[in-house]
């Protein structure tokens, strides 16, 4: 109420605006001093900007902006954008991850050229994500998706003298361009049969669609799903992820695998729930719930099995992130038309993405720290690391066990609530596959722990420095992962409330 009576409507986009302005401020700094390597200034501005956006998003979320209690969602620019609980919840995820990545980049980028570009690209991508979560029409969804993707391509290739980084950037770009074209072609097909791009209009047009057009509509929906599969690193467009995450600078991998994935899910949730309502879609024979069910199972199984066979920690984390995409897909796969459990399932997925944002970012930042030290990348290279860096290794242990779904860490609750809500919705087979994969994941996550704490070191590494930024970011992630177990209540309650509003 407060917001609607006292502030103009457009301020509901505050978080995204703050992010965009911060990016522009960095451009200004860069144009004043193009060769600046003042990490403290650049990282400081970025962190302040993202934290401000996070603060505003959290404030709006707490105040109920765009939620049922204060008059429902706020639509802007002739319904092209929407601000509701879900968009704010996801914005909070993106900005939390971005803030941790910025703090870590302070050390990681030290003495490298083009730092201002790095920070502003990450900020622009984050802005794109915030808009993606707010998009209410297929056009804004596509544009925001591109705003997220284009900076990401450049970021993956940021280490431009490093062959791996450039190669990863090129692969990511080629697959990204392909999937973008698939996505936009899907949009055009949907537009062709419905005559609209707004989600609500698409939904109503699909409702009284001539049966002869259902094939076209079905192909359109399928192609749009393909675009999301790319963004979330799900099967069948997952294969860029291991390459890109491995080749990219580790903070970028952290950003892409946590925030970018969440952004893909944010828009996928909204598009499928609002533009292609389950009841309508099933009537037309476009059973996307079943499709996502199969995708979820295939994605989690493939991700986990591939992760179990890796020798390189970063690559293992990349596959594990595919596996987690599979878990989150349960949120779309365990829906049924008009069921009261829909909000619970989707909310559990969103809560898992939030916890995942902390634990996965932390894990990649730990890899960044190890890269910074110049220790190798395989499991063997991590042997005995805990003797030299017990605090950082304790934090990594927290991330690994939390990713595996063990208590007392946040990943335990988010994973088990996700499985429980799938069972509650009657999709026990999804939970069973999830459980099998979860047990398998314990094997490879514990390999990292085993290497750090149990194996003997061969004494070949010197840890020369204690980079304060990386340490701080890792500790924030670890504390976040820990606190999200006792403090999971507000998260899951908010997530399930805002998710339920989507079905209203």
């Amino acid at each position, binding site marked *: 109420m407060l917001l609607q009576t006292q502030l103009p409507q457009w301020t509901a986009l505050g978080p995204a605006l703050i992010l965009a302005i911060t990016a522009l401020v960095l451009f200004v700094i860069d144009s004043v001093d193009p060769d600046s390597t003042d990490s403290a200034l650049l990282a400081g501005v970025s962190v302040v900007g993202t934290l401000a956006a996070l603060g505003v998003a959290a404030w709006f979320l707490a105040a109920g902006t765009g939620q049922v209690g204060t008059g429902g969602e706020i639509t802007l620019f002739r319904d092209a954008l929407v601000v509701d609980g879900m968009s704010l919840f996801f914005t909070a995820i993106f900005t939390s991850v971005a803030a941790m990545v910025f703090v870590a980049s302070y050390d990681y980028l030290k003495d490298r050229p083009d730092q201002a570009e790095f920070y502003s690209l990450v900020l622009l991508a984050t802005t794109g994500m915030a808009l993606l979560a707010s998009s209410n029409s297929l056009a804004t969804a596509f544009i925001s998706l591109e705003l997220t993707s284009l900076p990401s391509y450049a970021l993956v290739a940021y280490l431009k003298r490093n062959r791996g980084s450039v190669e990863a950037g090129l692969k990511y770009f080629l697959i990204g361009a392909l999937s973008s074209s698939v996505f936009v072609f899907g949009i055009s097909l949907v537009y062709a049969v419905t005559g609209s791009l707004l989600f609500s209009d698409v939904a109503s047009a699909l409702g009284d669609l001539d049966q002869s057009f259902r094939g076209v509509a079905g192909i359109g929906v399928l192609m749009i799903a393909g675009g999301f599969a790319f963004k979330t690193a799900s099967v069948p467009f997952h294969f860029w992820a291991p390459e890109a995450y491995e080749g990219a600078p580790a903070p970028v991998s952290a950003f892409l695998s946590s925030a970018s994935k969440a952004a893909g899910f944010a828009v996928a949730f909204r598009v499928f729930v609002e533009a292609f309502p389950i009841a309508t879609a099933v009537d037309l024979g476009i059973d996307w719930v079943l499709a996502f069910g199969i995708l979820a199972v295939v994605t989690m199984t493939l991700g986990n099995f591939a992760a179990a066979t890796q020798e390189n920690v970063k690559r293992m984390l990349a596959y594990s992130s595919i596996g987690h995409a599979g878990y989150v897909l349960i949120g779309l796969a365990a829906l049924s038309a008009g069921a009261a459990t829909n909000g619970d399932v989707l909310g559990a997925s969103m809560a898992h993405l939030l916890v995942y944002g902390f634990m996965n970012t932390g894990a990649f930042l730990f890899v960044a720290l190890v890269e910074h030290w110049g220790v190798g990348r395989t499991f063997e290279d991590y042997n005995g690391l805990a003797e030299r860096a017990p605090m950082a290794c304790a934090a990594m242990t927290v991330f690994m066990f939390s990713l595996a779904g063990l208590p007392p860490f946040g990943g335990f609750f988010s994973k088990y609530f996700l499985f429980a809500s799938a069972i509650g919705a009657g999709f026990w087979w999804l*939970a069973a596959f999830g459980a099998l994969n979860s047990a398998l994941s314990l094997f490879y996550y514990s390999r990292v722990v*085993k290497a750090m*704490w149990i194996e003997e070191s061969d004494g070949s590494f010197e840890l020369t420095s204690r980079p304060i930024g990386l340490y701080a970011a890792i500790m924030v992630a670890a504390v976040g992962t820990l606190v999200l177990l006792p403090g999971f209540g507000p998260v899951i309650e908010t997530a399930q409330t805002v998710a339920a509003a989507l079905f209203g």
Partner: protein
Amino acid sequence: MIIEALIAYTFVAALATFLAPDERAGQVAFLLSLVPVVGSLYMWGQYDATGNALLGGDLAFETTIEWLRVAGYTLSWHVGVDGISMPLIVLTTVLTTLSIVSAWTPITDRASQFYGLMLFMEANLLGVFTALDFFLWFVFWEAVLVPMYFLIGVWGGPRRKYAAIKFFVYTNVASLVMFIGFIALVFGLGDSVSSLSLPEIAQALRQEGTLGQFGALTPEALRAVAFAAMFFGFGVKVPIVPVHTWLPDAHVEAPTPVSVMLAGVLLKMGTYALLRFNFTMLPDVAQTYAVPIAAIAVISVIYGAFLAMAQQDLKRIVAYSSVSSMGYVILGLIAYTEYGVGGATFQMVAHGLISGLLFMTVGVIYNATHTRMVGDMSGLADRMPITSGILVAGAFGYMGLPLMAGFAAEFFIFVGSFESAVLPFAPVFTAAAMFGIVIVAGYFLFAMQRTLFGPFRLETDYEITSAPVHDTLPLAVLLLCIIALGVAPELFFGMITDAVTPILNAGGGF
């Protein structure tokens, strides 16, 4: 409030021990661990609960604080103690302290981490035995795995990495299967429950007609499937044959103090959960499948005993005999008589003490001789009279010598299972299980005869002398506890029967 205080204290104590210097960590951990012992004894003294915690009894030291709401269900911090959990809490605190002392000699490397993890495990174990909300209980239940993984993996024997990961994955798979079964049951109850509080769920499940259709499963089928899932999940922890194979690996590789905790307390988590979940919540299913369950119990008893007989390693002998003893617990539970279920609960405590004693004694012998192979040793009684005496006493306790806790427990179980009205052919099953005692006596007497008696004949280049006092003192304390419980089983048996009777009362009503 005392339960929260104890759990919180133990977590803080674990943290303090992590930060203590390695040379002093053992003493620090011992002193810190005395507080939970005193606290649990105080709880025992002040204990005033009646009835069963899950079936509407009056709890001691109960607290309920709402934690969070998810999908229409309330999760709470809900803890309390009844006659089943009280003895296990005392067992946990006492065994933790004693195994910390028994670790002074063998644990030299990274000591502060070792003792910190022991205390961290104790805190979680206390949580497992007091939590009365499903998710709270599940948090503690799973959290026990983490310290155990490290304790085996870091300080274990040559194949410790394999044993640790096997233990980890086995028990984690089991938990996941159990979780799916139980949650399906909760959702099957629909609007009959509004929280994940175990008492509420247990009482709803024991009423007629609360369970609805769940997916393609009829209420009866859901009950059976959930029972099977939970039985498997807890059975791995117990362990029952054929899912016992993680146990010998874990025991043999684990350092002695960890074996003590593993056999003494962690296995009891499995039987405790079986009693709380399967046998309390779904008595009708248990009784329908009484024959196969009793068959599993008897097979565990006999097969475990034969496996023990085939071993050459003293530690493996004790480890496999645990499989056998846990079979008695299952047999007592399925009897659904006061003596059967009560005896099974009593056996949890008795076996915890006795197997703890045996593992510790084997550990003390190993510290002196650096071998555990029966064939390598002879005439140890000559050089280590006190330790040998205690080993003999412990072995007799295992065989069920009267006036020791094992006798009382097994006697109760046999009486209870013999008179069982639920179990067809109860006398046959009981007789078959009793045969297990003969085998136990056989292998223990044989092993002792070869290791302890006869001429001393052990080729070593080091002196074998009596063990230090801090090694033998925990053994003596345990032996005293075993004898005390054997002479006066009433110490625990009164409160146990009080808590198990409600399970039986409604149990026949289906």
